[in-house]
């Protein structure tokens, strides 16, 4: 094998690819050849490295030099300076918000420093399409260990003792779940990987499948051995084309190495996997709906029990785990339950991957030990709120979760600690909101999502969310009634208690938590006709401050509905009857003369 002196670990996750990472790769290869460096330096495509906000990103190894926001036109200079002359280029290094000195090393950047990688252990370090690179990092050794040294009961005990709980949102003990499927009678059993990630703004599972597909296959094979299954399904959204492509390539390579198929490692164990692409219905993330969809039926949840562990796919015992859960398995087998359970808190062990999005400086994918405070995630790793605005709340757990206000920012991450404050860890979405976010609008947004995604089977979910959405919409339009808050609370309780699956049962959570922590905002809308965050269009007016307006005419020229009148060098005025409140005038004004009033 040819030796290279340098590997350029270029992020080829979906985020960076959409920022033209592949064009940058071409430019690198072109420039490396120009300087005759192609036999010394190699460009490696990796999966998502997590720091999507600063993409396209690249890490130079050895040296751990981190480059961000690469542009095709900068590549010739970068190659000449760093790779030919050995002088790392500061221009493309990360500069923290409160500092002026660029930080060259990945390990010194706050965003990476506080993270602890288990499920994402291989991110940025391997080419996801090269099985040898996965094996080079202890890949498939856990499967070999399980098949040659352990009994299914021992595997289940190890996973149970590790304290691993379902990372898809349910938080149920993975080892116990495996035990149920193992104990169910029958010689035809199935394993399913739930990659039907549907929360708005969540991309944990997508990233794991894209950056380390073999970790899923290895985890599933271990699970199959433990429960006695010989076939597995990966149910993945078709909206994730790169994930689908990479998992298919991984399956093909694993089959060629005999790591899937008959007689794996010559031990007689048989297991294979097929990929099933989902059409993107949110309810398919619910396990019984997913199984129905897999069978070719309408994706509607059904009553449990019987649980899938007893009667799942085709009525046979089936074990479903989420992508991130599967990604933890090989590490638990290799390093042991005691090691895994030493990380985290009393009831929540290990790490959790979050997709940190919204109004936070460092958008991206983060993996942190359970027990870390929400504040640490948002401020130390996330770099705080964008544009110096004030933090208001963070929504965790997607549309099924709740919002956490500033007063509870020191809450440690964990299934029970989050549940105690009305939210959930969920699958790991974390949406940061600032002072400009109206919390009634936030609740309305999430409810609009669950309302549209309700499968329609249960009346409380189908009709109830519709009524709640109507009320919330009414409030944001300034037509709220005194009794609305009480009706919302009453309906939340009803829908939560009477819906069959988690989609309906958790749909009211965003409404409940926003009323609990931001009731004053609801009351301002209803009683005073005001939106304190100045977001609800029906309740705000745009005006121009006469003492600040210079009469530059910029706003008048950019106004799409010609609502602004004024002479050059004269004070401009917005006609509220014509104004559509698009905010363009405020965005273009160079003198901060446009104000929003409520």
């Amino acid at each position, binding site marked *: *094998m*040819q*030796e*290279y*002196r*340098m*590997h350029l*670990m270029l992020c080829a996750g979906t985020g960076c690819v959409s920022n033209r990472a592949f064009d940058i790769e071409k430019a690198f290869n072109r420039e490396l050849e120009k300087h005759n460096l192609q036999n*010394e330096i190699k460009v490696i495509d990796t999966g998502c490295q997590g720091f999507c906000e600063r993409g396209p990103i690249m890490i130079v*190894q*050895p*040296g*751990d030099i981190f480059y961000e926001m690469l542009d095709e036109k900068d590549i010739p200079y970068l190659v000449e300076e760093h790779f*030919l*002359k*050995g*002088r790392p280029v500061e221009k493309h290094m990360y500069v923290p918000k409160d500092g002026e000195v660029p930080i060259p090393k990945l390990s010194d950047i706050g965003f990476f420093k506080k993270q602890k990688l288990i499920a994402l252990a291989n991110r940025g*370090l391997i080419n996801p399409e090269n099985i*040898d*690179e996965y*094996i*080079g*990092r*202890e*890949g*498939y*050794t856990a499967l*070999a260990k399980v*098949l*040659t040294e352990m009994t299914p009961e021992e595997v289940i005990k190890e996973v149970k003792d590790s304290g691993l709980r379902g990372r898809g949102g349910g938080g149920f003990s993975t080892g116990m779940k495996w035990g149920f499927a193992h104990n169910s009678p029958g010689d035809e059993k199935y394993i399913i990987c739930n990659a039907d990630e549907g929360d708005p703004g969540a991309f944990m599972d997508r990233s794991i499948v894209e950056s380390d597909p073999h970790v899923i296959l290895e985890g599933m094979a271990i699970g199959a051995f433990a429960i006695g299954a010989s076939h597995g399904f990966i149910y993945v959204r078709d909206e994730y084309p790169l994930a689908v492509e990479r998992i298919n390539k991984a399956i093909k390579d694993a089959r*060629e*190495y*005999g*790591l899937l198929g008959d*007689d794996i*490692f*010559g031990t007689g164990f048989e297991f294979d996997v097929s990929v099933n692409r989902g059409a993107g219905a949110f309810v398919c993330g619910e396990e019984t709906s997913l199984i129905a969809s897999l069978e070719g039926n309408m994706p509607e949840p059904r009553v449990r029990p019987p649980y899938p562990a007893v009667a799942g796919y085709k009525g046979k015992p089936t074990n479903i785990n989420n992508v991130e859960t599967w990604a933890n398995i090989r590490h638990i087998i290799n390093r042991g339950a005691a090691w895994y359970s030493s990380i985290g808190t009393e009831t929540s062990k290990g790490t959790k991957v979050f997709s940190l999005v919204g109004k936070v400086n460092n958008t991206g994918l983060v993996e942190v030990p359970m027990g870390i405070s929400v504040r640490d995630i948002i401020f130390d790793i996330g770099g705080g709120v964008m544009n110096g605005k004030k933090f208001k709340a963070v929504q965790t757990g997607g549309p099924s979760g709740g919002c956490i206000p500033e007063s509870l920012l020191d809450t440690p991450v964990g299934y029970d600690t989050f549940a105690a404050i009305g939210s959930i860890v969920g699958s790991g979405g974390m949406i940061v909101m600032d002072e400009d976010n109206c919390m009634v609008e936030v609740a309305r947004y999430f409810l609009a999502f669950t309302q549209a995604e309700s499968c329609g089977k249960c009346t409380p979910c189908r009709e109830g969310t519709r009524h709640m959405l109507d009320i919330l919409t009414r409030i944001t339009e300034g037509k709220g009634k005194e009794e609305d808050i009480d009706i919302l609370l009453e309906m939340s309780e009803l829908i939560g208690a009477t819906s069959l699956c988690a989609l309906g049962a958790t749909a009211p959570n965003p409404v409940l938590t926003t009323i609990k922590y931001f009731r004053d905002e609801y009351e301002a809308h209803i009683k005073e006709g005001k939106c304190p965050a100045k977001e609800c269009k029906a309740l705000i007016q745009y005006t121009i401050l006469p003492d600040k307006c210079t009469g530059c005419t910029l706003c008048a020229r950019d106004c799409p509905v010609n609502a602004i009148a004024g002479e050059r060098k004269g004070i401009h005025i917005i006609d509220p009857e014509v104004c559509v409140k698009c905010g363009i005038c405020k965005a273009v004004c160079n003198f901060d003369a446009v104000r929003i009033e409520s």
Partner: protein
Amino acid sequence: MKLKPEDLKKISEKMEASTNLRSGAGRAKITVHMGTCGIATGARDIMKAFLDELEASGKKDILFTTTGCAGLCSHEPMATIEIKGESPVKYVHLTKDKVKEIFEQHVIKGNIVEKSALGRGSERVG
């Protein structure tokens, strides 16, 4: 090819150079100083000579990297050899023949080639 459990180790060994390069692990580290001064006096050839030696040796536990000027431009081309757990040694006025000797003696066997060495240790920082 159908793998047996022991094959994982073979593949892993084959990949060791890549894995070490990326994780910064390794028994020894060779750093060629490639500032303008180094390049002007032939550091590129020195670098290639080290890479050739490395490839020919088949060793997977040796890291190779480059860095900038070491500050002693009159003594270029220079390289630093660091065996894990020992202080780094700087070599000066390198030639291809010296590279061969340094690689065989110091990198592989751990014996410092005194006649080409400038000295041991790092500069004091701070």
